[in-house]
């Protein structure tokens, strides 16, 4: 039971992060290392808004998501778009961006650990297991957002454009889609989702300027495991890795610190059998 709950929560978080990361990769072929840094910025935004200015947490969350989205769009426009043709340069640019965020947060908030208070405090007991309300709330919100995202992608014109560009950029371009503008919009959606994840997760975690590193690795593992650009794949893989982590903690309590390593090993094993990930389509040899 414990395993299921912990796995569900971790999995949902990873799913949100991974899907948003996957989106921008699919549409614009941008490996955005700074993705989780946006998540960190959102968490710190909430910390300062609710802690220093005493705003309502819900309002704080909304402002945080908006702020992060604006940051993301600015970063895309001025730092990534001009060098999009050079894949390696984009990659480094996003790493540098993440470092800048990290250092800026460090300067403003120092390296001390911070926390954000929960929206609803307390817990209830399901089948002998104590569960935070905040966890349930987070889980519910994540599901709603995922559903919205699914709706956006599957039922709207924008979603169609995003999906088709992800499928084949050149043909989508030929069909008259504004590739650059679409990339911009996707970046916005993607970063907003990262910010949102940070916002809902903030009360459950400890804030530090280095908090973007760990989820970054797990997020990438999820994306690779599920298949790059495949949203369904990211969704499934997120839960697989989430449950794996939970299992490790319960089965070998002395090895709880190994959970990351075990999850990554599973990823590599799966990749050995299916090099394109669980649900990825093997790309045609790009020439």
């Amino acid at each position, binding site marked *: 039971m414990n395993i299921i709950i912990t796995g569900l929560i971790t999995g949902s978080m990873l799913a949100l992060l991974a899907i948003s990361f996957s989106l921008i990769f699919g549409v614009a072929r941008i490996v955005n290392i700074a993705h989780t840094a946006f998540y960190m910025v959102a968490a710190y935004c909430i910390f300062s808004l609710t802690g220093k200015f005493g705003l309502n947490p819900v309002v704080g969350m909304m402002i945080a998501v908006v702020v992060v989205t604006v940051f993301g769009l600015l970063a895309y426009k001025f730092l990534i778009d001009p060098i999009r043709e050079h894949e390696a340069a984009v990659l480094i640019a996003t790493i540098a961006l993440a470092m800048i965020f990290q250092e800026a947060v460090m300067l403003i908030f120092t390296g001390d650990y911070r926390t954000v208070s929960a929206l609803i405090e307390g817990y209830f007991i399901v089948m002998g297991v104590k569960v935070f309300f905040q966890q349930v709330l987070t889980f519910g919100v994540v599901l709603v957002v995922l559903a919205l995202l699914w709706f956006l992608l599957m039922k709207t014109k924008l979603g169609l454009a995003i999906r088709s560009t992800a499928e084949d950029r050149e043909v989508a371009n030929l069909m008259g889609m504004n590739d650059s503008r679409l990339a911009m919009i996707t970046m916005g959606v993607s970063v907003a989702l990262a910010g949102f994840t940070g916002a809902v997760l903030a009360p459950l975690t400890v804030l530090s300027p280095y908090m973007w590193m760990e989820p970054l690795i797990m997020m990438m593992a999820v994306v690779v495991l599920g298949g790059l650009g495949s949203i369904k794949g990211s969704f499934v893989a997120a839960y697989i890795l989430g449950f794996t982590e939970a299992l490790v903690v319960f089965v070998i309590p002395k090895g709880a610190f*190994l959970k990351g390593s075990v999850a990554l090993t599973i990823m590599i094993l799966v990749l050995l059998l299916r090099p394109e990930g669980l649900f990825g389509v093997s790309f045609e040899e790009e020439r």
Partner: protein
Amino acid sequence: MVAAGLYLKRFYTVVRGEVLVLPSRVIVALFFLVLLGMPLISQNPYLIRVIVLTSIFAILAASWDLLSGFTGQMNFGHALFFGVGAYASAMLNVHLHIPPWGSVPLGAAAAVLTGLIVGIPCLRLKHTYLALTTMAFPIILMGIVFALPDITGGELGISGLQRISNSLIVNYYVYVGIMLVLCTIMWKITDSHTGIIFHAIREDELAVKASGINTTRYKLMAFCLSGFFAGIAGGLYAHYMRIAGPSTLEVSMSFTVVIWAVFGGIATIYGPVAAVFILFPLLEFVRFWPEYRMLIFAVVVLLILLYMPEGLIPWVRDKIEKECPRCKIRNVATRKTCRICTAVLD
């Protein structure tokens, strides 16, 4: 006397004809001279320490370039080779008392082995898949290091390694000398037949396959070669710091290597080396402003890439040299005609 004079004259002609004609070659020659002559001017231990560490990381960055820059096999876990080299040398030196001249090559051999182990499964992966998968390996190894504290020392690492030499100057020449030699070797490799195949794999693997070349073998070879040089860097680092710890395996280490290489310009070897020689001392230089050190570093990298997405060195090189449109020979930017075929340069 006469013979010596003749040799000198010949030497002068060679220098004039081969080195002085191109500013890039002059710079490389100056670079060698300055590095080798440095202790004659100043024996400041701090300066020497910075140069030695820079040299070690230059080898590392160049070895990344050899694999990822040339064959296009994006490796985001280069710290793996570095860490394996460092740990292997440290264990051999501390537990088995093998002196540095034995432990460093053996550590490099261990890194080559790791290159094989990692390379074989990874060859099935492409592009971003490969990049993200390789990133996982050092983290897994870190888990193992922490799980076996009796052998690896856990988070404390293995300390108390022997120094290569107790003399500051000898140490300096050993490290700088090894760096210069290894980087020249790497550059020669990329300039050889093998290097051309590496390059071709990056540009169009299918075409290389179609020409009857076993690309898998070459990719594996790139993994091993790169692992070898990175392993040496790791071993040297462990012996210099006298400790091999988990920090050699951290994600930030892998990232830093990529930053250096891309900043300097990939697929050049000299680019990453030069980048390390700029960025690492820069990081030391801004110590007078400690709070903003990393911020300055990141901003510099970002700005340079924004204006020179190909990397700094290729950009500089294109400014000071022109390629002859007819015979593809490089010329000083100030020349009007090609120095070989006299074609007009535009």
